[in-house]
């Protein structure tokens, strides 16, 4: 197995603190080096927060696992210097086809918007994603990434937590002002702090297989309902780099996972799907059953949750990793301000407010897709099939809108967030407070550049007129002016169009590239008030 990828084995190194038995207090300890913990480490370093990452293993994700990455997480990774490498290796796609029985039911185009640095969607095996982040972390002195370190227990104190960690050299104790639990869906930390993790379990089991083949199939997402080669169930086919194809077979609730995982069971299935004559090799396979659930609170004292430890969604719509990255994007700048004493601790609670809202949105979407794909009663199955049959009628556009083979992950705007300042001026377009910023091509010192690469990491005042000052501050938090026409040129007018800007329009943008407030003019008092609100002061 694994013809296309050789797994790195990262060295275990005994830490100084374990050797010397000196209990050290760290600012931030991240538990888990999956995609979310690694993203957190990169973002912590970007904010100059020293951190320790603990992982009980010593390699990357085994098997492809998460495959599709959407534009917003790619933009976050681009801010953290790993996005371009992922896009270069990944395969881009935009066309999805849905088949019902032996016929094409309909197809959809992601219709990526032009003039964005990052593509709408790429496919990339999770192990590449993790490997690239580990490489980048190697260049960052702020991150101490420790393999073969398993968190065994947590004790919460008033203003810190005490961690018991096991390594090949035994057990030792560490202290942390903040602990970020990125330890996955079966999070131990969750049970250590007594958090609830509730929602809906789905009975159906799915077989996922990574298959190597040279195929001339176009780079598209193909989804089958009830195909002749796998009757009554659904199948998904996706292309990944290195001629690896990902196939998901729905197995139904009574499948025996250990039995179905055996090559002699998988190979005939894949053969039936591809037609007997196509050559392929099976690279990796796994059977899973999934749930849609979330933690009751993303913060327990000094312990914060992000990624699968905080929410688990069905795989339809590729939301797992995508949404976890956005948790980190939301959290780390807040943590930085709180650690530095520049914002009250209640700013951290806005993390739960905003990301629990996003998690609920994701859960709703993924539960709806799951109910469509795996109908729970004869009658709901009948409606599903009726919808698919109607969708084949070229005139029945309405039915195609009802077909749900997974709605692709889109960022959830924090429309109700307490950090937003509501509009007092009239704006068109979609850049409401709480929304992630749209990208646009700009010029910086005469050279082609992207707008999103000019912002992020700190507060920005995007000014479409001559700003009277260089920055506006609340306490030690300052928002620096980025003036269109001076610092960046918007030659094509795309930036102004996307932000519905007129001369004088001003946007207050958060460190996570989300709009906090906007006005038709530049009023320092109003800006300072909005800035205070955006840091929960």
């Amino acid at each position: 197995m694994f013809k296309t990828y050789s797994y790195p084995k990262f060295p275990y190194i005994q830490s100084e603190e374990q050797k010397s038995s000196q209990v050290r207090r760290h600012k931030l300890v991240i538990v888990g080096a999956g995609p979310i913990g690694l993203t957190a480490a990169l973002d912590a370093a970007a904010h100059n927060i020293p951190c320790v990452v603990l992982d009980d293993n010593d390699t990357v994700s085994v098997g492809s696992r998460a495959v599709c990455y959407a534009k917003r997480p790619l933009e976050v990774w681009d801010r953290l210097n790993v996005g371009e490498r992922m896009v270069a290796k990944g395969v881009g796609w935009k066309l999805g086809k849905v088949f019902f029985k032996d016929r094409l039911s309909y197809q959809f185009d992601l219709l990526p918007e032009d003039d964005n640095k990052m593509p709408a969607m790429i496919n990339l095996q999770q192990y590449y994603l993790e490997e690239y982040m580990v490489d980048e972390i190697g260049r960052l002195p702020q991150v101490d990434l420790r393999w073969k370190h398993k968190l065994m227990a947590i004790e919460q104190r008033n203003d810190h937590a005490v961690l018991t960690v096991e390594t090949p050299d035994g057990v030792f104790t560490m202290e942390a002002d903040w602990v970020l639990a990125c330890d996955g869906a079966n999070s131990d930390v969750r049970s250590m702090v007594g958090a609830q993790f509730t929602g809906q379990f789905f009975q159906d089991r799915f077989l996922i297989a990574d298959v190597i083949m040279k195929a001339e199939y176009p780079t598209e997402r193909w989804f089958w309902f009830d195909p002749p080669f796998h009757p009554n169930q659904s199948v998904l086919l996706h292309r990944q780099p290195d001629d690896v194809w990902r196939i998901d077979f729905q197995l139904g609730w009574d499948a025996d996972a250990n039995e179905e995982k055996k090559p002699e069971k998988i190979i005939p299935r894949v053969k039936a799907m591809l037609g007997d004559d196509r050559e392929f090799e099976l690279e990796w396979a796994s059977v899973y059953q999934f749930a849609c659930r979330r933690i009751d609170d993303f913060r327990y004292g000094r312990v914060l949750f992000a990624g699968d430890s905080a929410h688990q969604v069905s795989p339809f719509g590729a939301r797992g990793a995508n949404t976890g990255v956005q948790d980190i994007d939301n959290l780390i700048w807040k943590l930085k301000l709180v650690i530095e004493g520049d914002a009250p601790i209640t700013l951290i609670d806005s993390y739960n407010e905003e990301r629990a809202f996003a998690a609920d949105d994701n859960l709703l979407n993924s539960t709806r897709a799951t109910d469509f794909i795996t109908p729970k009663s004869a009658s709901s199955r009948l409606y599903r099939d009726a919808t698919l049959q109607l969708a084949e009628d070229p005139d029945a556009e309405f039915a195609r809108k009802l077909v749900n083979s997974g709605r692709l992950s889109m960022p959830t705007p924090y429309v109700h967030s307490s950090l937003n300042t509501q509009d007092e001026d009239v704006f068109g377009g979609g850049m409401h407070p709480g929304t992630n910023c749209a990208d646009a091509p700009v010029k910086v010192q005469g050279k082609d550049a992207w707008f999103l690469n000019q912002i992020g990491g700190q507060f920005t005042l995007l000014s479409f007129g001559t700003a009277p000052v260089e920055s506006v501050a609340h306490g030690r938090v300052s928002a620096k002016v980025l003036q269109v026409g001076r610092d960046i040129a918007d030659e094509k007018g795309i930036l102004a169009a996307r932000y519905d800007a007129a001369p004088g329009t001003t946007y207050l943008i958060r460190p996570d590239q989300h709009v906090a407030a906007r006005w038709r003019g530049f009023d320092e008092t109003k800006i300072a008030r909005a800035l205070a609100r955006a840091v929960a002061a």
Partner: protein
Amino acid sequence: MSLNLNSNIADPDAFYKELIDSQRGMDDAQAAMMNCKLVLLLANHIGDREVIREALKRAGGAV
């Protein structure tokens, strides 16, 4: 707008016959499938979620 419960179809007897006749020769499964399509087509035509919800309720649905 609310759900219209007054008679709204000219020549009700002819409509009813047309409805029943449209499923002539179908077995139960085919008729059930057709009914589902019909519900989807008509619901989309109505469009108004309030009206549809009221109809779901009147029909004994758990809403």
